[in-house]
Structures are given as C-alpha cells and as structure tokens.
C-alpha cells in the first residue's frame, strides 16, 4: 500500500509538471501583453506616456525578455523555494494573495462538497428504495434538469429572484463568517445553491443507479434468504457495495466544484481564488494563472489519490493490488 501511494504521488507530480508546462506556454501564446495592461493603469495614475524604453525596461525586470524554457525553469526553481512569483497587475506576492483568497474558496467548496455529497447520496438511496413512486420521479426529473443547468446562468436566475425581485438575500459579496456569521450565511446561500444543484443531481443519479443494480445482485438475494430485515439488508449489504462507484466519482465532483467556483465567484463577486483566476486571465497576469492552475491541479490530483485509497478500503478485492 505504501509503495502504491508513493508511486501514485510520483505520477501525480509528473502530471502536475506537464500541466504547468502547458499552461505556462499557453498563457504566453495568448494575444495581449500583461505589461501593457499594467502600464496602462500605471500611466493613468501617473499621467506619463507609455514609452518604448519604459516597456523594455519592465520586460527585463520581469524576465519576460528571456526564452520561454528559461522562464519556466526559473519559475520552477522559485517554486521549489516556496516562491510562487509576483503578480504583475496587483504587484503583490502570489503566496500572500493565495493565502488570503484560497480559504474563502475552500470554505465555499467544502460546504458545497459535503452538503452535495450527503444530499446527493441520500436522494439517490431514497429514489432507489422508493423507485417508481412520485418521489422517485420528482427527484430523478429534478436531477436531470439540475445536471444540465449551467452554473452561472442558474446563479444569475437565483440572484434575479431572491435578491432583485424578492429582496430576501444580498445580491453578492463576501463576509468573513467569523465576523458576521448570519450575514455570511445569507451571502453564501445563492452561490452554494447554484453550484450544489449540479453536485446533488450527479450524485443522486449515480447513487440511484448503483443501488438499483446492487438490489438485484445475487448476494442481496442471499441476504433475503437469510431472513434479514430490509433495513439490515440495505444498510449492511447494499450501501457499501453501491458506494464503490460513487466514491470514485467524488474526485470528479470536487473538480466540478473547483471549476464551478470560477464562475460563481465571478457572478457573486466573491473575492476567492476563482475570481482571482478569472481576473488574472483577463489581465494576462501570467504568474497568477500559473500558480492557480498549479494549486487546483494539485488539489484534484491529491483528491483522486485519496479516492483511490478510500476505494481500497471499501472494496477488499482491490485492497492488495
């Protein structure tokens, strides 16, 4: 098992390196120039003009005049020393930016992930046990709709209804839950709600089909033949088996939530990693995009590793593999 985890970690690092290479190259291939964006804002404040000399000077300071492979190796070297680089636009250390932004994204992501998983699995089990009833039909239909709704569109719809029309909730913004928990909850209701619908829908559909499959399994018939009650059969014999594919999907669900945070933080003006990344892409702020992709990529690779370990715990057949 230890050898397996070490091997997976090494593979994970290699994947992460490849991802950063691709991103490193692509942000530089995009049309536009982060220095021009920076200088434009700089010049408005200082009332000076953009000169060729200034530009080349900046290019040299940021090291952008060197060949891309050299820049990459340099960036990687900094990374190994714990230096994520500096934002061109915000003129701030990216480590500090992430330390400030990531907890917000993680907080929202954690709530969504936990509630989405619990809600989805519960809904799926209920549907499977009550299959064919109005409740099953209602949840399944809602889940089918929920899976196809784009996160940002649903977010805007919620905003229109609850903030603009009804005025029950604040349109957008972020409050530290330790400062004002109630306000924080009210502000998070819509962002979490719009991401979670997809999570719950996906989980519910998967759980339902896995449960239905397991219910027809031979070993469940054996369990009935033993005289066990339905409750024991569901809890002891069905759920653990049905959860094996569901747990596999959890890694993917986390990726969906991180991806969703990019949209949802933009729509609801939450100053988290998602919004930071979105703005960085618009501003061509290379360093932030690189660091952000590294962080998200690392989280997804790590969570997939955790999922695989969990899988072995659930299914003894692959435990020794």
């Amino acid at each position, binding site marked *: 098992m230890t050898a397996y985890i070490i091997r997976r970690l090494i593979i994970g690092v290699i994947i992460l390196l490849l991802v950063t290479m691709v991103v490193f190259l692509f942000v530089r291939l995009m049309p536009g120039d982060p220095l021009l964006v920076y200088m434009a804002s700089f010049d408005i404040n200082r009332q000076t003009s953009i000169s060729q000399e200034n530009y080349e000077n900046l290019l040299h300071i940021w090291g952008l005049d060197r060949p891309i492979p050299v820049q990459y190796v340099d960036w990687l070297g900094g990374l190994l020393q714990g230096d994520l680089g500096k934002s061109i636009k915000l003129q701030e250390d990216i480590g500090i930016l992430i330390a400030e932004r990531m907890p917000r994204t993680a907080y929202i992501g954690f709530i969504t992930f936990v509630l989405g998983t619990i809600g989805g699995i519960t809904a799926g089990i209920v549907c499977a046990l009550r299959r064919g009833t109005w409740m099953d039909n209602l949840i399944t239909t809602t889940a089918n709709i929920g899976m196809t709704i784009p996160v940002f569109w649903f977010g805007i719809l919620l905003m229109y209804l609850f903030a603009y029309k009804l005025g029950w909730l604040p349109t957008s913004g972020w409050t530290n839950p330790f400062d004002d928990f109630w306000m924080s909850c009210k502000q998070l209701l819509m962002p979490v709600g719009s991401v979670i619908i997809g999570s719950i829908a996906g989980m519910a559909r998967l759980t339902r089909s896995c449960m239905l499959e397991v219910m027809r399994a*031979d*070993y469940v*018939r054996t369990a009935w*033949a*033993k*005289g066990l009650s339905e409750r024991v059969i569901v809890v002891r014999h069905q759920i653990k*088996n049905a959860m*094996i594919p569901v747990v596999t999907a959890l890694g993917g669900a986390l990726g969906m939530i991180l991806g969703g945070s990019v949209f949802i933080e933009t729509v609801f003006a939450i100053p988290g990693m998602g919004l930071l990344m979105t703005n960085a892409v618009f501003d061509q702020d290379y360093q932030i995009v690189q660091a952000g992709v590294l962080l998200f990529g690392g989280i997804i690779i790590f969570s997939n590793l955790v999922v695989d370990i969990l899988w072995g715990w*659930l299914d003894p057949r692959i435990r020794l593999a």
Partner: protein
Amino acid sequence: MSVVLDVENLKTYFHTEYGLVKAVDGISFNINQGEIIGLVGESGCGKSVSILSVMQLILTPGEIIEGKITFEGKDLRQFEANGPEMRAIRGSKMTMIFQEPMTSLNPVLTIRRQMTEILELHLDMDRASAGERAVELLRMVGVPDAASRIDDYPHQFSGGMRQRVMIAMAISCNPMIIFADEPTTAVDVTTQAQLLELMKDLVTRLNTALIIVTHNLGVVARYAQRIYVMYAGRIVESGPSEEIFDDPQHPYTIGLLNSVPRLGEKHGTRKLVPIYGVPPNLINMPPTCAFLPRCTYKTAQCEKEPWPALRSAGDNRYLSCYVDVRGKQ
C-alpha cells in the same frame, strides 16, 4: 415419516412487457423429513422459480398467483413475503444454497460477518459465540484452517470453498429443509462430487430434508430418493428415482434419459438421441401439452385435448400424459 413441506397447485407468473410468463403453472410436490428429492428439468422450465416461490423470494414483476404452501402445518402464503413470520422461517428453518458461489456471497463483507449475522438473528447469539460457532460450522463443511480463513473475504476463496461456506450457512440453524438451486453447476466435476457427498452426509446427520434442483440427471440418480420432472412450468412425471430411471413413462423423461450416457453402459450399444426442437416460449402458451411439438409419441387426442393433469401411474408415481408409452419404446 412426516411431511415437512407440501406445495399444492403453485402458480407463479411474471408480468413482462412481452406478455404473461407462466413460469410455474400449477405444480404440486411434497417432501418428508430427512428426505432428498430432485427437481429436474431443462433451463428455464421453472425449477428455480418454484423453490424461490416457496421461500417467497420472488421479485417484481414476478407474482405468486395461486397455491398452498404448507410448512409445519401453516400455509406460508398467509404471511407477507417480507413480513416477520416469513423472515423468521427464512435462513433458519428453510434455507437455500444458490447456484453461483462466485456472486452469492457479499464481496465487501468477511465470511465471518456473513455467517454470524444468521446466528445472531435467528439464534440470538452474541458476536463472540456466533463467531466460534461459525468456525465450527466451517470445519464441519471441510474448510481447512477455518479459524483463520473465516476472516477472509469471499474473493480469497475458490468456487468450491465458497459453496462450502454457503452450505455452512445453510445448515447453521439446523433447518427443516434445504433448497439447493443447482448447487454444483458452477464448480468442476471433482468438486461437484465432493460437495454433493458433503450435503448428503450433513442432511442425513441433521435429519434435514433436501431439495436438489438440477438439470443433471446423474446427480439426482445418485442422491435423490424421489424425482419430480418439470417441463414448461409443470411437473410431468414424478416417482421414486430408481423407478423413474428404470421405467420412465413420460415422453419427455424418456427423451432426457435417451440423451445422456449411463455409467457401465457398453460403448456403442446404444445411440444417444437428443430431444429434437427447443423448449417452448412460456409466453402465450397453447392450451395443449407443451411437449407436444417435440413429442414422438403424440396421438390425435394430444392435439385436441388440453394439457393433461397428473394422474396416478402406479405406486407413488404420477404422470401427465394421455399416451401409455409402455411397449412402444
């Protein structure tokens, strides 16, 4: 000898989208204490459904339409399929060994847990003593090194060993009846023989009745005292095994016996004859005898009259055929 189980006119139908499948269409059988009987027939003739019906383990779209299942003087059909009375009988007084040892054990639970849950449920044992008893049962069925193997998972057992575990679970509460649904189909021939000997040995010791469902005539010939031959959801012939083998009277039974070689038979003395044609589709069956299209003894009466009911054909023998085949073979 007292009758343990008496099934009368049992009908189990499946409501499928293609039509009504009469999987079991009015069968009657009984079994005495400590007796071994065989339920024989081709695949899809309703053997498994019959015994699943007795234990009320039929899943939708299947439904027990009619019949009386008398077990220990009580009609089981008065009980709800998964109600407390049925659950108290299943796994303790009436147990079942399934066909597929590979898939009939739960892959994510240890053998210990799968065995102890029965003992805890029906015999009110605590975890520890149930565990001890489970090890003892595994030893009884010949699982080597039972004390340590009991904490393994099913995938760590071979097919034959898993079937031994199934047998151990089946005898764990000293049942009145064990249903064995093609218990040896999925294992190799050597293991088959071992398992059957083991089951015979155990039921004799425990004075338990055993119903072996099989399409293997060799198995029933060797172990069963009485045989019920099923075709298309009905019993077509029944009687003591020796008599059935020596003097089959239903054209289907005759066909079955003509299609298999017998041990000790001199090579080349008898040609093996298959039963021509295929078993009927159980949807929209004609009212006439289901074996009619494949029968080599059919008469004009068979074409006109409905499927004949079972009639007595000698001591303890029953037959569902208009034709007297004696002397025609």
